[in-house]
């Protein structure tokens, strides 16, 4: 078994990313979709940090990760506000029933 290195982290990140995508795609509930997005963002952050360590980029990777976290928080706040609004409008948060984009 090889020593844990960059690739290990990348693999973890990849799997996490995939799971996040899976969540986004499969779940009906808008909140669940939001959770999937958080997973994806986390996987991205993991990559940033991993490259920051192994890629000799100094701390810039970590800074980016920080920014992403901040954006994720903002995004979640806005998204949840929207979800609430949707719920008020459609009385549901199931995304498959909300297909107004179609028209």
């Amino acid at each position, binding site marked *: 078994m090889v020593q844990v290195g960059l690739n290990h982290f990348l693999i973890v990140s990849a799997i996490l990313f995939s799971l996040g*995508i899976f969540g*986004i*795609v*499969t779940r009906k509930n808008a909140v669940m*979709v939001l959770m999937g997005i958080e997973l994806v963002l986390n996987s991205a952050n993991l990559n940033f940090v991993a490259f920051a360590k192994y890629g000799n980029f100094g701390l810039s990777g970590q800074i980016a990760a920080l920014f992403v976290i901040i954006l994720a928080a903002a995004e979640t706040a806005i998204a949840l506000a929207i979800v609430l609004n949707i719920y008020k409008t459609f009385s549901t948060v199931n*995304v*498959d029933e*909300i*297909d*107004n*984009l*179609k*028209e």
Partner: protein
Amino acid sequence: MTEAVLLNISIAILLLPALGFITLILFGKRIPGPQWVGTSLIFLALCISIYVGFGKLAFYAGQNLIMEGRWIQILNVPVLGQVNFDLGIKLDNLTVIMLFVVNLISFLVHLFSMEYMRGDIRFSRYYAYLGIFTFSMLGIVLTHNILMMYIFWELVGISSYLLIGFWFEKKSASDASKKAFLVNRVGDTGMFIGIMILFTNYHTFTFDTIFAQIAAGNLPFHSSAWLTACGIMIFLGAVGKSAQFPLHVWLPDAMEGPTPVSALIHAATMVAAGVYLVARIFVMLTADAMLTIAVIGMITSFIAATIALTQNDIKKVLAYSTVSQLGYMIMALGVGAYSYAFFHLVTHAFFKACLFLGSGSVIHAMHHEQDLRKMGGLRKKMPITYYAFLISTLAISGVPFTSGFLSKDGILAGTLAFGSLTGHWLIPIVAFLVAMMTAFYMFRLVILAFHGEPRDLHKYEHAHESPFVMAMPLVLLSVLSVFFWYGLNPFNPSTGWFLDKWIKTPTTIVPQNMRFDFMKTEAPVAGSLENAKAGEVKTTNAPIAVGAPKVTKQNESETAIVHSEHYMHAMHQAHYPAMALSLLLGGIGILFSFLLYQWKKIDPDKLAESLKPLYKLSLNKWYFDEIYAATFIGGTLAFSKFLAWFDNKVVDGIVNGAATLTRMVSKLGGLFDHVVVDGFVNFTAYLSGFIGIFFRKFQTGKVQTYVVFVVFSVIILLFIFRPFF
């Protein structure tokens, strides 16, 4: 009296009837008394023609006067140089005599018609037609070239068409006029071919120039056969117009026209035009052509005479007698008795016109009854008509002291001489037979109409002598049928001025080896050669401007060289036997008719019964009409029907078939287009629609679906951009 004056006033003779025609056709309905317009103009023409005739015969009897002017001129023709179509008139003795004859008879017919045609709904039109006819006939007589002759020939045809069909309401009249025109056209077509032969070789139509060329040895297409053919072709025109076998069928039918018209056209003038034409081309006829002509004339005279024996319609008898007499003249030309043929033409014109006008007078008196079987005894009611008719009948039967005796005897002598010289004895035999039959049927006519007891009392009661304008022409014409107008010797015309001074047989100009033996001359005739040279010079003269006609004089004595001594001798020898024989046979004929019809010694019906097949043949005119109807007319009509069918079904069928085929191909193409090409297009549309529908499924409006796409796209893009690891 110069020649120019004579020529110019002859043009006036020609144009006066034309003037009458134009005036009457345009303003006829507005002119009161249209008959006076036509009659006075023709009277003027008659006076002038007498003047011309007198001037010509008295001062220029030995010369031909010619005036010509350019009609159509084609310059710079490749190879030929210059081609001229001339208009011209030629005054020779033949012409001036014919001018007089035509004008006189025309005038008398005009006069006669005033009473006869009074009250007809197209009275002015009738006089207009008479005018155009006289004009055309005079044109034939006057012209100096064969094209003009053809032109007037056709015009005569059309005027005869108009006059025969004058009462066109009658089907029979319009049929007859059509038949006359078409049968004439058959002959005319042949004549035109003859003209084409001449023009092709000589590039001119002028008789004298053509004859000069032939005399100089320049034969058509350098072949004597063509010369013969040319003569026969032109003779075909005469066959048509002079009602010769086999084109004689129109003339009896032409009696549907008014009777004065029959007198003018179908007895005296128009039908004589054929004889006149043959006389004009006489010099260029070869022995073969002449023999053909003689045989045709013989057949015609015989057939017509046999038919005339049994006809019951007064005009039909006269019509067939006319055909028979025309056959005589043609036969005379064929046997070389040129002068007697023309002589007979003139005498026949007078007595036949008299006979027709007499029959017109009878018909008029009998209220348009033409059947001989319903007449009889009219002698007492119509003495003037009777005596005029009788004199003419004597003339046509060849009784001495009449003009007919003189001319007929000459012809018989000619045939006899011909028979003795060439061995063609059939011709004189038939000629004498016909003379006998003529005497018989003419007296039959007279006896049935004028002698005996009236058979139709009702009509007889109303019959009356015709008024002056109808009687006067009869008297005049019967007087002209007496011998002393033509010569003082009542038994030998050749010493009279008519034949001695005026009419002479011209020398034929065909090569020696193509003549009858008796027409050969020992040495080439100097005059004709000289004439030939003169003719040649004339054609190369500087072109004459239209409107300034050239007048030439020709010395006739040079051209008028008579037959060889041999022939003259034979002719002289034949004269008295012929006279005796004709007198005998004529007497037998007259006697028979008296036996049959006057004294009733023999019952004609029984005779007819005993000779039934012959009688039927004669009565039905040898079935010529039926045969022609079955063969030529029926054949042409059937062929035209077939061709119309062929055209409609086959030719057009091919076209339509091609169209149908094209349409089928195009349908196939359309089908291909529809199924394959269009199918492909539709398939594409369907496919894109299908794809659209397919992709529409992805366009769900759901964010998640889009995410899926994004993911797949990313995968694909990754594969695309990073393929190598």
